[in-house]
């Protein structure tokens, strides 16, 4: 169940409180419009992520940064030319499916790292964790078709050859990073036995989720019994 805790002030603030430090909504709206436009421009060249986002259409992820304090909302859409809507909700009227909160740097790290846990991340989540997990997976699997973008910019011949070079360079770098991560992770879980393995963790989180749902169902049953 989603908590009804009030979100912290979104970027634009009410001007009826003259003593409050305010950022002109024109500026904050411009920043969000630019962010939305950049994300959707990138998604234009990633049909896989676009169609996965369309399946999440209507669901809203609230990202509340406690430091610096601001809240933005990401909503998957399935309209033409727009896969993700990025907005502030100054009057806090929308009901997010998932609400993520924590310091901005911790949230950014969570989006980038390959981890299924929020433990010790400094980030708390309310509402459905399924949307968060889907969004995180999408972000990791994002595969922008740079070649198509480059082709549109500089023509097929130049675009293709540049894309080939970028691809081989990126592939090599990714391989290095992944093998380094794998070695460290194997050492910690298999040799030192200081951390549980990923499948164990995932099974644990699944059990926690099931328990949470059972508790919700039980709560509903009890409420119904009390009512009758």
């Amino acid at each position, binding site marked *: 169940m989603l908590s009804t805790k009030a979100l912290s002030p979104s970027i634009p603030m009410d001007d009826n409180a003259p003593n409050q430090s305010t950022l002109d*909504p*024109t500026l904050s709206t411009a920043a969000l419009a630019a962010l939305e436009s950049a994300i959707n421009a990138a998604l234009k060249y990633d049909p896989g992520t676009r169609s996965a986002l369309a399946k999440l259409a209507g669901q809203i992820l609230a990202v509340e940064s406690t430091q610096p304090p601001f809240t933005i909302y990401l909503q998957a859409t399935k309209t033409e030319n727009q896969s993700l809507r990025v907005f*502030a909700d100054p009057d806090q009227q929308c009901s997010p499916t998932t609400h993520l909160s924590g310091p901005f740097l911790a949230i950014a790290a969570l989006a980038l790292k390959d981890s299924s846990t929020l433990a010790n991340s400094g980030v708390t989540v309310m509402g459905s964790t399924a949307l968060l997990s889907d969004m995180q997976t999408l972000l990791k699997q994002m595969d922008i078709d740079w070649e198509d973008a480059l082709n549109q910019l500089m023509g097929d011949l130049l675009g293709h050859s540049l894309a080939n070079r970028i691809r081989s360079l990126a592939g090599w770098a990714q391989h290095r990073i992944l093998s380094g991560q794998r070695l460290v992770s194997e050492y910690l879980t298999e040799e030192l036995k200081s951390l549980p393995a990923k499948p164990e963790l995932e099974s644990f989180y699944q059990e926690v989720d099931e328990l949470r749902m059972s508790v919700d169902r039980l709560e509903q049953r009890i409420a119904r019994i009390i009512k009758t």
Partner: protein
Amino acid sequence: MTEKKTTHFGYEEVAVDEKAGRVADVFHSVAAKYDLMNDLMSAGVHRLWKRFTIEVSGVRAGDKVLDIAGGTGDLSFKFSRIVGENGLVVLADINESMLKVGRDRLLDRGAAGNVVVSQADAQFLPYADNTFDCITIAFGLRNVTDKDLALRSMLRVLKPGGRLLVLEFSKPKSSLLGKVYDTYSFKLLPFMGKVITDDADSYRYLAESIRMHPDQQTLKNMMDEAGFGETKFYNMTGGIVALHKGIKP
């Protein structure tokens, strides 16, 4: 002999029954190049003002939205995407020329099915009581002859809990910005109007009508008196534009 009731048309005093016709002439004249002029006059910032309006509206899938003085359909297009196939957007304008431009633009951009176009006077809205979840009027209220009557009409067609959003030019917060803004709107604006639409007078009227429009607090009080609750306003771009919001109790 009875004295004829008058109202403002820019800085001119005109008879109440004349104003609508004079305003209509202005918009017939600028309709074809309205969007281009808006972009030039505001350096594109009017898109941000409208975007913020949509964020404050809290409109969601399935809602019914009335976009009064919707003109060329900027807000209606965005709303049609948000309300989805189960929602409804009514693009209303008193001016036939503006409405035609708006209808064509919506069709060209692929907004159809959940959008209807309606020629309507904001003072006498031809819709049933308690119909809409949200009403917006962007840069339109200052052209309405009897603003109080229009606000009451909007209140009537809103559902209880529904929101009214009035986006309108207002009074800059700083006097320095006010002076720069005055010079811009009385010198540069009519000149741009002359060059682009060959109609300096219409743009002079726009500048004058902005000065005659109630300031932030006055409009908020008018909304309170009309019966709206939880009224408030957001100043944008230093108060050049303000977004007022009220909820039907």
